[in-house]
């Protein structure tokens, strides 16, 4: 039974109510390795049914993974009880009306067919390609989404995703590379591992750096993660309508470097495409920043109703509803540089950052984010990547960092943005490497390596 068929069965169990059933199914495997051995291999099979029941404008939600008739009947009872317990909400936008979902890519037969032996084999390919001990994983998954509602929604999508994460590391040296995509052919585990090992060799003998503000080149993994943390709040409509986020009062204004353009585009085949959101609204490409001007944020049905707008198809799963609509498919416009090394030439002197670690938002209104660099931090001297640095503590205002971008690389790459908590829902960002005039280093931490 596919996800839509299961959703329709759940809907029938809620007979007599206005309802929406959402199904997320997962068939995935992850061969996680450390010190070049698989140590946490995990195979997951699950089907989760969420039932939303609306009674007199009151919404109740229940979920379960028992999908037999008794399980679905019990689910409908719990969702109904939840609806009965909620006060009426005059701002409830109702369930989405049926609309045609866009046709998107995102499913690959080869990726869908991968089994445990394949996942182990591809992990082995990565491990054998690294001269240094390798840490990371190879994973692949098949995610099924299905939505059926009494308003006539009948949507389904099968998504595949594959990813390899490679951290080549020994005592005092570490390098990082990752690849992700929806096609098996999008990733080359051996290539990623070899790149990580090459990077690691350059990190031996890392030295400290005096705190201060430096020009910097951020590789795509570093820039994408920083942008994602900023974007959780800044590019969603909830913070805007509540008049508390960075975007409040800035839509329509030039706030970033004119070389910076950003969209949320789940329809782009270069990313991890989605056809609809968790309310069943068709996904739209939303231009967030055009030539440095903040143009819009992403919307779901609730925030759109409050602001007199239309949903752009960015409702999150119900477990993340407190965030409001989320930009799960950020896509940064490319620049003119051929490579990150060319960006280093552009800035002359500064620092080079491969990857970030443990980010935290210090001040969402100002867009201040702190975190650490890791697995490939270097000084840039005379336009060249030079001596390795220990991991640096940074505390940056992301808007200030984006205010002067001397360059971006031409081709954005897809970065995995899924830590695989809860139900699998592949997400990623398309990002180039960037050069920024200002990256605020506020301390030093441990050296590279394990």
């Amino acid at each position, binding site marked *: 039974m596919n996800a839509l068929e299961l959703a329709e069965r759940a809907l029938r169990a809620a007979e007599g109510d206005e309802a929406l059933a959402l199904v997320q199914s997962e068939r*995935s495997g*992850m061969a*996680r*390795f*450390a*010190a*070049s*051995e*698989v*140590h*946490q*291999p*995990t*195979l*997951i*099979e699950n*089907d989760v049914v969420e039932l939303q029941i609306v009674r007199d404008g009151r919404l*109740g939600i*229940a*979920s*379960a*993974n028992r999908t037999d008739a008794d*399980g679905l009947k019990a689910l409908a009872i719990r*969702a109904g*009880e*939840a609806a*009965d*317990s*909620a006060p009426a*909400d005059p*701002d409830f936008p109702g369930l989405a009306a049926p609309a045609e979902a866009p046709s998107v890519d995102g499913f690959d037969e080869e990726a869908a067919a991968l089994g*445990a032996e394949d996942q*182990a084999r591809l992990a082995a390919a990565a491990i*054998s390609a690294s001269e240094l001990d390798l*840490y990371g*994983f190879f994973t692949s998954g098949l995610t099924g989404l299905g939505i059926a509602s009494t308003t006539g929604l009948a949507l389904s999508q099968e998504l595949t995703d594959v990813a390899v*994460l490679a951290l080549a*590391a020994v005592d005092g040296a570490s390098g990082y590379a990752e690849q992700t995509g929806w096609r098996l052919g999008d990733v080359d585990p051996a290539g990623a591992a070899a790149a990580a090992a090459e990077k690691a060799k350059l990190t031996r003998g890392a030295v400290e750096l005096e705190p201060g503000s430096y020009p910097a080149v951020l590789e795509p993994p570093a820039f994408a993660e920083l942008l994602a943390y900023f974007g959780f709040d800044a590019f969603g409509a909830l913070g805007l309508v*509540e*008049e*508390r986020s960075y975007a409040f009062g800035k839509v329509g204004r030039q706030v970033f470097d004119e070389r910076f353009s950003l969209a949320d585009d789940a329809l782009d085949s270069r990313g991890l495409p989605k056809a609809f959101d968790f309310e069943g609204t068709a996904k739209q490409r939303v231009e967030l920043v055009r030539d440095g001007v903040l143009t819009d944020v992403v919307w779901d049905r609730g925030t759109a109703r409050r602001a007199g707008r239309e949903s752009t198809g960015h409702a999150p799963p119900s477990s993340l*509803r*407190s965030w409001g609509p989320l930009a799960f498919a950020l896509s940064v416009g490319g620049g003119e540089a051929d490579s990150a090394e060319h960006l280093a030439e552009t800035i002359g002197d500064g620092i080079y950052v491969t990857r970030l*670690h*443990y*980010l*935290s938002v210090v*001040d969402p209104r100002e867009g201040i984010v*702190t*975190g*650490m660099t890791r697995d490939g931090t270097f000084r840039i001297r005379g336009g060249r990547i030079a001596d390795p640095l220990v991991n640096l*503590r940074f505390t940056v205002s992301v808007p200030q960092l984006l205010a002067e971008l001397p360059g971006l690389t031409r081709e954005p790459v897809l970065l995995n943005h899924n*830590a695989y*908590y*809860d139900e699998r829902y592949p997400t990623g960002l398309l990002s180039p490497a960037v050069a920024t005039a200002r990256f605020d280093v*506020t*301390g030093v*931490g*441990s050296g590279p390596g*394990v």
Partner: protein
Amino acid sequence: MRVYQFRHQRARAIVATPSIEPRAGSKVRAVRELCEHAVATALGAGASYADARAVVRRSQVVGTRNRRVERLDDAETEGIGVRVLVGGAWGFACDRRLEQEGAAAAARKAVAFAQAAPGGHSRGLAAVEPAHGEFRTVVERDPFSVPLADKVDLCLRAEEALLHEDVQVTSASVRAQHEHKVFVSSEGAATDQEFVECGGGIDALASSDGITQIRSYPSAHGGSSAQAGWEFVESLALEREAPRIGEEAAALLRADPCPSGPMTVVIDAEQMELQVHESVGHPTELDRVFGTEAAYAGTSFLRPEDLGSLRYGSEHMNITADPTTPGGLGTFAFDDEGVPAAREPVVREGILSGFLTSRETAARIGSGAGGSMRADSWSRMPLVRMTNLHLEPGEGSLDDLIAGVDEGVFLQTNKSWSIDDKRLNFQFGTQIAWEIKGGRLGRMLRDATYTGQTPVFWGSLDAVAGPEEWKLAGLTNCGKGQPGQHAHVSHGASPARFRNVQVGFRA
């Protein structure tokens, strides 16, 4: 209403008979037999060791925001996870079907995955007596007997009490969870445990003139939880505390920014709990020390040979791992390898005295027998996780700590947190701070952060307040592992004082 806090106390036996009843309308499930079937199937397929965990969990979340119901969710999940060793290699697979077919399928797939796993593989497990026993959370009032409408009403009343003209966003939430877990291993262990959790919290977010400030109670990031019945949520007195929280959020808009520079800080119990979590709990997880989290959560500045000799902090620093703490989210009778719970010192008078271990990592250092393995659901493999990790109390009151400060700041309630991959360099922000001058609290301050290097920071600890100030708080958002796993852990701490700490990140 009494203020309900789990005061500092030693473990007491809370083992009881479980009372899991088959759900109405469902077939009676012999869950233990399913686990035994899974283990037998795995052994038959070539495993040298196997264990199976069947979990049935129900959780409820009620959340309101700006006096509208934002979440009213009731989730159930169930399934079986099977872990095997084949030729020294681990394998893990799971199945949502609590049926013979699902249990056997998970076992066979786990074996197949282990057989295919690349690597040298020679893993041993520390010897333990096969455990047999049961556990049940002591509950005064079953949280699932409390009508959802009452939970909604509690949140809305608390929100109403948060209102202030400068407060832009009010929110309140309560949660409840019931989990039944059965574990069987090929060594003969068989345990049956039933856990009940509850929690809640409120937030007020004030915004004006481009400044946004937040205050939370009883903790940031979703409030605080405990392994207890609904009486814990009632004891939080969310509605009673709300006016103060709303007023403080508004007052922060007009407060001065916290000054920067090295100074003495007094840190409240809640922020100390996070400080312990990040800078002691994670680095002492022995799997991190051995590098198995290197690619994601990170490693540790500690080495196995540091045990018993490394100076972690001053003589005032005493840290204990205690999975028997009443009310702790990390409290159990047996961990997810079937190892009995035991209270163990981690840091004693500033010296590293213990690691958090699994049977595998304990065997590698030839010390201990595990006891800290936990999985966040039936679909995840157990990892070394914190249970309940406490900063042991010292002497005196919070006022005594403050009285000993000529110039400094008092820091309350976490706002931001970050620490490097080896758990050395950290930076925390707090929601509110207070100037200390001449041993007394002064003006309110906003946007406070402090930073340090773990052993240097703990070395500057010069006092911990006494047992009367000790509080236990539970958090539900500790992330680790790939695929990701959330852990629910508790920490107890009293306020503490540190000298010469770098406050602020701006020069």
